[in-house]
């Protein structure tokens, strides 16, 4: 995998869209993180008492219609999908990219990531209630004869893991190369890398890459608890803050971006992917992963550190932003948010500034991206 990418024709970031508990633009998120704000609160929709983790990061008053208008498709979408189409719309608008006008829809790629436990209990409650016998045991006969008749047929669209990204393709008219990955931060990074490579090899003129995730409902908390994600809370009283949100980036080749007069946040100067062994010493392993990217050291780092997770690499920089603890861990959307914040920092710091965006997290797959302001 390339450590440094040739400058001749780089892949650049020309649009970012973020819908997060700390704001709907990367600048707002940066500002509020830097100001010490935190979106971590006790969950508003359920009682966190049974769980080791007492807080989550919710987006206040999220209404997808503000971003995509009225659409009958909205009723087919779960919260993850609604966030995805909103963030995707913001990114495309930010890039001032008109599909079919700027690039043929066939040449626009879409790579996204979705998360664990994407269906809230509310959606499947009728299925569950009507398939339980009086002792609370699952009864397949009741499921087939009673529960199925009480469930709205659109349920499938709200629970299939690829549908949020499919909805993005429909709303934005993207028809080219694509894939959907699942479920951790690393898979969100895979989506970004897939987009970079598609543009690099000329398979796509541009790529919309990112992810969406909603971990602020009960079923998600049960899943996270059972997967051991809340272990740091149990042991040390601090840990990951599950969040909800989506982030997307528009990537295109620098040459074509300049040709259409696009605003360029930064070019992707390099990236690293790694599969972390379970016994790897945290910090040292991450340091060796990013080593090729941090010489010379970057001006700023978007750190993936969060309470209880040693996702740091020891790189020093003048500016280090740690969004996960304050904005929440957006899991499948985390990588795109990290890179979006990196792009915003690059823009702020001006030409030549190098920003390291770490996309470390749960599972084995880890990644880091080096952005350079142009």
């Amino acid at each position, binding site marked *: 995998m390339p450590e440094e990418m040739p400058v001749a024709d780089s892949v650049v970031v020309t649009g970012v869209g973020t819908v997060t508990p700390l704001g709907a633009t990367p600048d707002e998120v940066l500002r509020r993180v830097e100001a010490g704000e935190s979106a971590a609160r006790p969950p508003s929709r359920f009682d966190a008492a049974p769980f080791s983790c007492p807080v989550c990061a919710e987006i206040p008053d999220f209404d997808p219609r503000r971003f995509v208008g*009225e*659409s*009958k498709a909205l*009723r*087919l979408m779960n919260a993850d999908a609604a966030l995805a189409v909103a963030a995707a719309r913001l990114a495309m608008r930010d890039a001032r990219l008109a599909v079919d006008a700027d690039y043929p829809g066939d040449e626009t790629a879409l790579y996204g990531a979705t998360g664990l436990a994407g269906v809230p209990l509310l959606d499947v409650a009728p299925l569950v209630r009507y398939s339980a016998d009086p002792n609370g045991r699952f009864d397949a006969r009741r499921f087939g004869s009673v529960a199925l008749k009480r469930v*709205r*047929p*659109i349920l499938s*669209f709200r629970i299939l893991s690829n549908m949020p990204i499919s909805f993005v393709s429909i709303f934005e008219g993207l028809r080219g190369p694509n894939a959907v990955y699942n479920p951790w931060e690393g898979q969100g990074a895979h989506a970004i890398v897939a987009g970079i490579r598609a543009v690099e090899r000329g398979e796509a003129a541009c790529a919309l890459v990112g992810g969406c995730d909603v971990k602020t409902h009960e079923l998600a908390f049960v899943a996270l608890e059972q997967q051991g994600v809340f272990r740091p809370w149990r042991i040390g009283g601090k840990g990951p803050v599950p969040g909800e949100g989506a982030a997307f980036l528009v990537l295109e080749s620098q040459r074509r971006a300049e040709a259409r007069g696009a605003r360029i946040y930064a070019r992707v100067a390099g990236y690293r992917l790694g599969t972390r062994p379970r016994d790897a010493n945290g910090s040292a392993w991450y340091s060796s992963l990013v080593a090729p990217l941090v010489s010379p050291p970057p001006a700023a780092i978007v750190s993936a550190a969060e309470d209880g997770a040693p996702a740091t690499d020891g790189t020093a920089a003048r500016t280090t932003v740690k969004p996960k603890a304050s904005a929440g861990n957006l899991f499948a959307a985390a990588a795109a948010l990290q890179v979006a914040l990196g792009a915003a920092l690059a823009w702020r710091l001006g030409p030549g500034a190098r920003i390291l965006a770490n996309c470390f997290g749960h599972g084995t797959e880890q990644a880091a991206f080096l952005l350079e302001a142009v």
Partner: protein
Amino acid sequence: MTEQEIFERLAPLITEVTGIPPETVTMDSVLVTDLGAESIDLLDLSFLIEEAFGITIEANEFEAQVRERIPGGVYERSGCLTEEALAELREAMPEVEPRRFAPGLRAADIPSLLTVAVFVHLVQRKLDQHVEGPVHA
């Protein structure tokens, strides 16, 4: 319930599944071609109607009726509906222009012919069945 009453209760459901504002929905609106309904919208509408009116709509409601009316007869041949079937469908769905039941029509095309009036009368028939006493326990 009268036809008008049923229509008034049905219109918001149609708006929900098609996104078309209630003022634009008429008895003659063809759901697929006029209101842009796709397969999932028709399935969703059937479910919402069942819940709203307390009736049951079968998967292939009209096909089942027609097959019953031509026992021993052939419903389709090489994928296309037979003359017999087309004739029965014309009778079963007077709301649809008869010429739409033309040779070459396939079973899978039937949903694209459905108008709001078809649903209104279907609901009416089902409600009347309830009033007359349930056939099935």
